[in-house]
């Protein structure tokens, strides 16, 4: 028997629960049960319910691991019933990290939608950790309404950081909303980066991914520089159970981030 059982989740307590939007919550764990790099994901176990894959939203350098999660299915519903101090399990890290070394010296163009900001926040924090190594960091983020924006309390601080450029939009505004209105592509009309040589990273709901990617391709980003988070059904995370296979890739091992170059010939990559 191997000393490490790849199916065993490491038990860890929930330290803090921060509601972000009506259906999105950040769960801060008491410590970092596993080391990971930005872009890698973990399987989060809700005892006796099961597990599901999530990419951490905290920096790989943070002492505590965080996940920002939307309530959508059986596992997340059970997770939202848990309270601070209760136990969950973590297995991982799985998949490949963002190739940060390739991003160095370049402008990094990050595009997010809805809860898709969660893994992008981990990437953003990892970039901030070594911010001088990158030319500039752009974030373009869209949410359904102002209420649905995640990290509302953090964004104003991020906007003030030198070398960071953040634009937000909402599909539908309200009285308090002063910013742009429209789906995320409305803030992709002007892309102030060297598109031929810059990496761009996209994560969000399927439709948003589809249209944002289309726009980025049109704008001139190279296929191999467009990094896309793939949402697939996953069970083992080890590249064995076969659930997440798409074309010749196991999203859990070869992903969870694949490039447009990798997936463009796959039928309906964003379903």
């Amino acid at each position: 028997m191997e000393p490490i059982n790849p199916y065993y989740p490491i038990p860890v307590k929930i330290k803090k629960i921060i509601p972000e939007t009506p259906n999105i919550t950040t769960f801060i764990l008491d410590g970092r049960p596993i080391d990971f790099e930005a872009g890698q994901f973990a399987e989060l176990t809700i005892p006796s319910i099961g597990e599901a894959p999530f990419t951490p939203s905290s920096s790989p350098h943070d002492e505590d691991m965080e996940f920002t999660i939307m309530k959508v299915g059986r596992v997340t519903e059970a997770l939202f019933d848990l309270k601070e101090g209760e136990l969950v399990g973590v297995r991982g890290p799985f998949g490949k990290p963002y190739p940060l070394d390739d991003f160095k010296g370049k402008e990094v163009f990050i595009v997010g939608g809805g809860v898709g900001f969660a893994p992008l926040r981990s990437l953003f924090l990892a970039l901030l950790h070594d911010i001088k190594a990158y030319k500039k960091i752009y974030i373009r983020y869209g949410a359904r309404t102002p209420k649905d924006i995640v990290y509302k309390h953090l964004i104003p601080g991020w906007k003030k950081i030198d070398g960071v450029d953040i634009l937000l939009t909402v599909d539908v505004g309200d009285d308090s909303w002063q910013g742009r209105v429209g789906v995320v592509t409305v803030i992709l009309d002007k892309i102030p980066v060297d598109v031929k040589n810059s990496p761009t990273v996209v994560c969000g709901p399927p439709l948003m991914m589809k249209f944002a990617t289309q726009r980025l391709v049109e704008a001139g980003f190279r296929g191999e520089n467009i990094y896309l988070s793939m949402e697939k059904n996953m069970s083992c995370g080890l590249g064995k159970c076969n659930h997440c296979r798409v074309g010749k890739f196991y999203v859990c091992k070869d992903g969870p981030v694949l490039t447009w170059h990798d997936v463009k010939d796959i039928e309906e990559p964003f379903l």
Partner: protein
Amino acid sequence: MKSYLLSQNKLLDFVKELSRDGSLYYPEHEDGKTHLVKFDEKSPFTPNFQKIRTAENIKHFFFPSRDTVARFPKDEVKQVPKSYLFGVKNCDLRGIDVYDRVFMGWEPVDPFYRERRDKIFVISADCPEPEDSCFCNILGLNPYGDGISDLNFTEVSNGLLFEAFTKRGEELIKAYKHFFSEAKGEDEKERSALREKAVKKLSSINAKSLKKDLPARVEAADKKKMRDARDECVECHACLHGCPTCYCFLLGDYKKGKDVERVRLWDACYYAAYARVGGGANPRSRLDERFWNRFQCKFNFFHKYENIYACSGCGRCLLGCSAKIDIREILWNL
């Protein structure tokens, strides 16, 4: 390769001795079907090594349909007992070959599979009488063990003629050398003749071979044709659960007293919810998409990485199919 002869009158004693070291399973033929049964000194020993592979595949032994793989919050290690599979056929060895690659060749190594592989000794037997449902030949397999297993034997007039493929196979022969005598030229000649006959029979059952560019054809398959082929499918999944090379699984968590038990369960890509994600999107919501995906997996994806098809030609899928869909027809027509 050196051959060792075990005369028929020593077979029972040999099996008896092996079974004292670990449970031994051998094929028995009953009511038109062959099953692997556990050897029991108190029951009559009536093996049948002539008939084709057993009705059930042998993946249960290495990859049980329901297997506890972790306990939470405190994990517990369980031991797998030693056992012997005596007289399994080469099509089922293809299954082991596929699993060896998935569970041990691809990182990380699955400790549960590896432990079973270490603890289970595999002794294969020639398959001298292929039947109409057999098509191992078009997958490039022989109707006899030629690797993968620890030992293989051929039933010849003078007894069972053994060959060893692994070090532990050699060691087993050495450890039980009092049962074996040196094989004679005539035994080996008879083995060659029996094998030739079986190969010929397979060629007459499946005259057409698979097209060389099958993976590309599967990838470019006409969905309409695929739909026609699966029209009768009632989604019983017999083809997948009976398949010795299918390795899909799902992890399920169950309460066990105060603790939680994580169980690895066989899954099948024909289930409608197989690829559905938390948010509800499903890339293969239609049956024809799932039907096509099965062929993609076995004849394109796996081939790309391992240069073999994840199919053994055992024929369990076509015999088990409620709609009598013959996988060969689909492959030949692509």
